[in-house]
């Protein structure tokens, strides 16, 4: 706000101040300086000109656009927090199981343990009221079920006697893997469809965009529910199921990317440099993929980062519903689903709460990074 006021009413004094500020900026950001120059008063411009003659060679440092973006990106505290969150998550889930290898993903802790079964009844007491009966049945079996956090099991065990902490790591691996693969696939699909529609226009655009509309109108969650139920019934191996799941999530989420690419290209197509490529006789493929798509990349990278969060949410929702990643494979969603049993919800918070927190961290991290990138890549941004 203050800056704007200065521009509106520049006094001679402020002109000089600005001038100083600009030269400080030239050390690192020549483009910013050029922009500022335009708003300077005449005397200011002169003095910059004089100084540039002498100092230009020493102070002028060329910065690539990528470095500029990175500088702006790291200025925001939230983006740094996001990077730290995601880095921690990747280390936790990728390196975690390698270091912390006492329990495997599907290792059941066997030993002689006393397990407790808690049952609840609600009985009529004959006078119109209710009596809540809590029944605790202790039994001995060979599996350490629903253990509390301890040195052995940092976050206890789940109802099958598997270590929660280790399963969180494996669940993270699968969530991140699905997230990255789906986002990459949907971006590729979106670039191809959106690129063709935006570049060629006319009937190609019409047909392709109606296809996009169709996919846009399909309710995502119910259709993914149907699709993954179908996948699970085909009797394929767990790994193949997961890959098919990725394909289906991609299939029902690429339409947004295609729209984004098309919209951007419609605008870029009319620019002069595109006329130049036409004059130079480049092939359409080269014009689309070499000259148009790179200019859409900033927006695409932002939407990819934000998309990662939503894919992770979809995957965990499907796993929660029991139709995503199938047990005994670990997934954050299916770990939270254990909370559907009242005794786990109430007495074994260690089983379901950490998985949910990790989902929040993952989505939050990717959103922070995405927001930071958007601000950093926005050419209109002043800072």
């Amino acid at each position, binding site marked *: 706000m203050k800056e*704007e*006021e200065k521009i*509106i009413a520049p006094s001679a004094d402020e002109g000089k101040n600005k001038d100083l500020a600009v030269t400080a900026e030239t050390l690192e950001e020549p483009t910013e300086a050029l922009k500022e120059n335009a708003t300077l008063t005449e005397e200011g411009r002169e003095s910059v000109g004089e100084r540039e003659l002498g100092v230009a060679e020493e102070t002028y440092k060329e910065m690539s656009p990528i470095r500029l973006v990175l500088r702006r990106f790291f200025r925001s*505290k*939230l983006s740094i927090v996001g990077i730290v969150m995601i880095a921690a998550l990747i280390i936790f889930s990728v390196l975690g199981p390698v270091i912390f290898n006492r329990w495997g993903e599907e290792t059941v802790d066997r030993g002689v343990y006393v397990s407790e079964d808690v049952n609840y009844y609600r009985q009529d007491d004959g006078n119109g009221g209710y009596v809540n009966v809590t029944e605790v049945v202790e039994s001995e079996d060979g599996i350490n079920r629903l253990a509390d956090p301890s040195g052995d099991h940092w976050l206890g065990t789940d109802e099958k006697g598997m270590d929660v902490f280790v399963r969180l790591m494996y669940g993270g691996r699968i969530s991140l893997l699905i997230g990255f693969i789906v986002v990459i696939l949907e971006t590729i699909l979106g670039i191809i469809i959106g690129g063709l529609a935006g570049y060629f226009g006319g009937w190609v655009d019409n047909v392709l965009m*109606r*296809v996009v*509309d*169709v996919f*846009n*109108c*399909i*309710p995502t*969650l*119910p*259709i993914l*529910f*149907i*699709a993954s*139920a*179908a996948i*699970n*019934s085909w009797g394929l191996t767990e790994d193949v199921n997961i890959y098919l799941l990725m394909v289906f999530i991609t299939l029902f989420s690429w339409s947004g990317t295609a729209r984004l690419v098309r919209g951007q290209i419609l605008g870029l197509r009319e620019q002069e440099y595109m006329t130049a490529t036409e004059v130079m006789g480049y092939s359409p493929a080269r014009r689309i993929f070499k000259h148009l798509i790179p200019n859409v990349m900033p927006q695409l990278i932002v939407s990819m980062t934000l998309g990662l*969060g939503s894919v992770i*949410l979809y995957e*965990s*929702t499907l796993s*929660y*519903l029991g139709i995503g990643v199938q047990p005994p494979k670990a997934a954050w*969603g299916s770990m*939270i*689903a254990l*909370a559907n049993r009242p005794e786990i*919800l*109430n007495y074994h*918070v260690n089983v*379901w*709460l950490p*998985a*949910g927190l990790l*989902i*929040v*961290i*993952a*989505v*939050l991290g990717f*959103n*922070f990074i995405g*927001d930071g990138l958007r601000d950093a890549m926005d050419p*209109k941004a002043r800072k």
Partner: protein
Amino acid sequence: MFKYIVKRLLLSIIILLGVSIIIYTLTRLMPADYVDQTFSSKVQSGAMSMEDLQRYKELLGIGDNSFTGIMKGYFGWLGRLLQGDLGRSFKYQKPVAEVIASQMWYSFGIAIVATILQFAIAIPLGITSATHQYSVRDYVTTVLTMIGIGLPSYFFGAIVIKVFAVDLGWLPSGGILSGGVTYADNFAGMMAQFGDMVWHLILPIVVTVLLSIGGLMRYTRTNTLEVLSADYIRTARAKGLSEKKVIYKHAFRNTLIPLATLLAGILPSLFGGMLITEQVFGIPGIGKYAYDALQFADIPFVMGYNMFLAILTVIGTLFSDIMYSIVDPRVKLK
């Protein structure tokens, strides 16, 4: 304008045809169909033979799962749809349209309150966080609302149920009416019943609102920032208007323009119900019914529900485009 709407409606029909083909094919690929599930015990005990089962499937029009069988089933479904018949739900044993119409209102009741609250909270938050950009207030609201975006509804629902229903015992954990209570058949009884319903719906509404504020708040914030850097805001400031007047009289109205596009998403969310939230809280809305039908492979209901959502989306998009051209005269529909 009229020509535009007609053109869009015609296109919508083509789009909905595409949607229905995809949904129908996938639905038919679902495993464990209704007949198998319902009569598996009878088949095991020998009361029904496999031939009976197959005949029953033929009767329902889901016997042949080859390509031609699915195509035949689809055109049968489409033909009945054109006569205004969505078919009869396998699971609920009632016409699909009737089930949707009767359960929709629970979902609608939650959604309308949640949507109003969501707008009432998110828009002021978005504006203050834009006018105080990079302040503590901005960071706090941004982080809190972003956590809302990241929280899965079933997880947040579980926490809320544990804390408020189980540990504190303030609110019921689910359902729509208290069990074992009968209400008198008069006005007072109806009011008591309504109060009980509201009582049960507090938690689901709170969860829905908190989880959906984030998106809208971010959207408002971005719009407001964009508007605040426009030339006419600079002019308003230069005229010496008070900051309050600049923001609430000049900026605020223009920040609302892009919000018109949000109308596209509101229509399905108002009437479509919430699959997960309703299931977590055990509310007999359309979302829970659809969820149960999905597990049951109730093809007519699943088709009816998905098409209902798709139609709402199509209408919502059209509606938002028209609204956009109304609130922003620079936008021309063609």
